[in-house]
């Protein structure tokens, strides 16, 4: 009896849920964008040095490699999990590509080698989470250790340098005075965002994150989808690492330490829910920009370095708290429906 009920009913409600949540997310992005614009204008008025090409470039470069990871992390969060291994896979992808380049591998092949390692790491995460059913926290925490350890083992703990000049074009080259790195990151964000809004396959991630059992019963191959999600997360983390090597000219096996938490925080600020089923790629980008602006602003406003972390924590909690409260106020009746 219950089976019959759940097999029909949740499909409809989850459809409605997704529709409603989509609207809410748009509202959420709006408040975030408003905050970003307000901070930017405030900084410009106060310091007169915010809207300079150099400063805009600096802020954009600051979030570019992280932005490449945001697409994969948003997928993982929306699907109801998360990926703690992105910082380590970031380092591993970078050192594998750099090591391949050092041994004379052509640039495209070396990049593919780095991406392949990210693919394997992400695929393994996906298999362990779905088929062995270890929870995402433990699985990706384990992979975080494995990938970092592999990066250290490949390099024997040292940085890899002496890479060919042509490889630096991705991280250091410019197109119309804009760094290629920024363009690449924005293209990935844009494609990711469109896919998650428009593509039927990617929309299924929201169903799974919103109500996994209902999604399964409605015929979605949940396991296969989750494996794809973690595989993509691994590939994009490795790609970000490779781009970072191209920017800094050096592959560091210690790179990306703590990156996972920065990315997850940005995605949450941008509207993702740790419970799954909610969030957008562009929201994650706005989250990154918001955090980047706060950091930039604290330096422009000459906040003493000893107070910066404290101030950062307070501003983040205020921003998310304000946002959460205003959302709850706006959506109280709808929320009841969605959780009931």
């Amino acid at each position, binding site marked *: 009896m219950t089976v019959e009920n759940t097999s029909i009913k949740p499909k409809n409600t989850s459809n409605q849920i997704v529709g409603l949540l989509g609207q809410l997310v748009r509202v959420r992005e709006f408040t975030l964008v408003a905050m970003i614009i307000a901070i930017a204008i405030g900084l410009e008025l106060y*310091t007169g*040095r*915010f809207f*300079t090409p*150099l*400063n805009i*470039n*600096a*802020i954009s*470069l*600051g979030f570019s*490699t*992280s932005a490449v990871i945001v697409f994969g992390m948003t997928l993982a969060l929306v699907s109801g999990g998360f990926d703690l291994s992105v910082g380590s896979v970031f380092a591993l992808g970078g050192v594998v590509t750099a090591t391949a380049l050092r041994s004379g591998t052509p640039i495209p092949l070396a990049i593919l080698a780095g991406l392949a390692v990210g693919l394997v790491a992400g695929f393994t995460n996906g298999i362990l989470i779905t088929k062995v059913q270890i929870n995402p926290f433990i699985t990706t925490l384990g992979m975080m250790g494995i990938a970092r*350890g592999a990066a*250290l*083992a490949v*390099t*024997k*703990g*040292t*940085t*890899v*340098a*002496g890479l060919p000049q042509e490889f630096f074009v991705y991280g*250091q080259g410019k197109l119309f005075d804009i*760094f290629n790195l920024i363009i690449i990151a924005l293209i990935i964000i844009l494609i990711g965002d469109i896919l998650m809004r428009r593509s039927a396959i990617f929309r299924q991630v929201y169903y799974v994150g919103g109500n996994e059992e209902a999604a399964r019963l409605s015929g979605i191959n949940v396991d296969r989808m989750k494996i794809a999600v973690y595989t993509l997360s691994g590939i994009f983390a490795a790609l970000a690492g490779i781009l*970072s090597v191209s*920017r*800094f*000219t*050096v592959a*560091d096996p*210690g*790179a*990306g*330490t*703590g990156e996972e938490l920065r990315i997850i925080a940005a995605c949450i600020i941008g509207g993702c829910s740790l419970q799954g089923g909610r969030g957008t790629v562009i929201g994650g980008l706005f989250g990154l920009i918001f955090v*980047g602006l706060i*950091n*930039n602003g604290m*330096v*422009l406003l*000459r906040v*003493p*370095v*000893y107070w*910066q*972390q404290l101030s950062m924590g307070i501003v983040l909690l205020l921003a998310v708290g304000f946002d959460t409260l205003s959302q709850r106020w706006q959506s109280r009746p709808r929320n009841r429906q969605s959780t009931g």
Partner: protein
Amino acid sequence: MNINRREFLKKSGIAAAAAFAASQGVNLTRAQDMQTYYMVSFLSGISYWADAFRGMQDAATYLGVEAVYTGTPEYDITGEVRVLEETLGLEPDGVVLTVIQADALQPTINNAISSGIPLVTFDADSPQSDRYAFLGTGNYAAGVMAARYIGGLVDGGKAAVITVPSQNNLAQRTQGFIDTITAEFPNIETGDSFIVDNQNTSEQAASGLAALLQAEPDIRGVFSSNAQAAIGASSALREAGLSDSVHHIGFDFDEGTLDLIDNGQLGATLAQGTWQMGFWGLMFAYMVRNGNIASVADWMSAGISPLPPYVDTGVVVINDTNSQFWRAE
């Protein structure tokens, strides 16, 4: 043709050790049971310790003893205590130890000393413990050196420091730099408001310095107090088109830093004497273990340390004129 770094250091080190040994009349005959000395570290995978262990191995080869490297791969306080306890259980002839946390390791260090195992610390110390000696970088003095490098090149303007304020060794480097600029180069402005926190990553170093360059367009000198800072700050200067007009000195070296120096994106870096720490660390432990210390008739009964309690292994400036000596073959 060029004598490479490894050989250079090996030869100079061995020559110095030989001179020292000859003057002390050390007995270098091999014992029938080969003595075994352990190096214990935390974060045992990272390359930083490799150079220290290379020094220890060079000393071991010279002395005819065995050097073994062990440690805990993570930044794990209880892990390093456990590894040290396990190592002491093997009854080693001596231990060369780097200390993850001074208080946590103190009881175990004292156990080693009281059970007659010579133990010296290197790179990071436990100053309240009974260890016989500490060999490491005088971080404040290193900051002084960085300040004099920048002060010698920059005439006026402002100077920034990229560091991790919560990390004690880096805070000392920063303080040495700021104090010296303030005292010796009064025409250069620096201070706490010119500190960038890079949280040990290249990305944060680049973003932080880029922002500071906007707030303070008159910056003419940058001191990066760790290796990630140097790499990130070099990128920020390049991206802002300031590589040529801002003088930049880093800290520590690896292939990446050496490349940056050779292609003009980093003026210089300060290399720590890590090989020296390992080489002299083993020498120290060996001398005590084999009864070669005669500073007084019986140092143990006198209740004094048999060794110089504090040895600053110093830093040296690497720039494009000498960088080739630091490249591994």
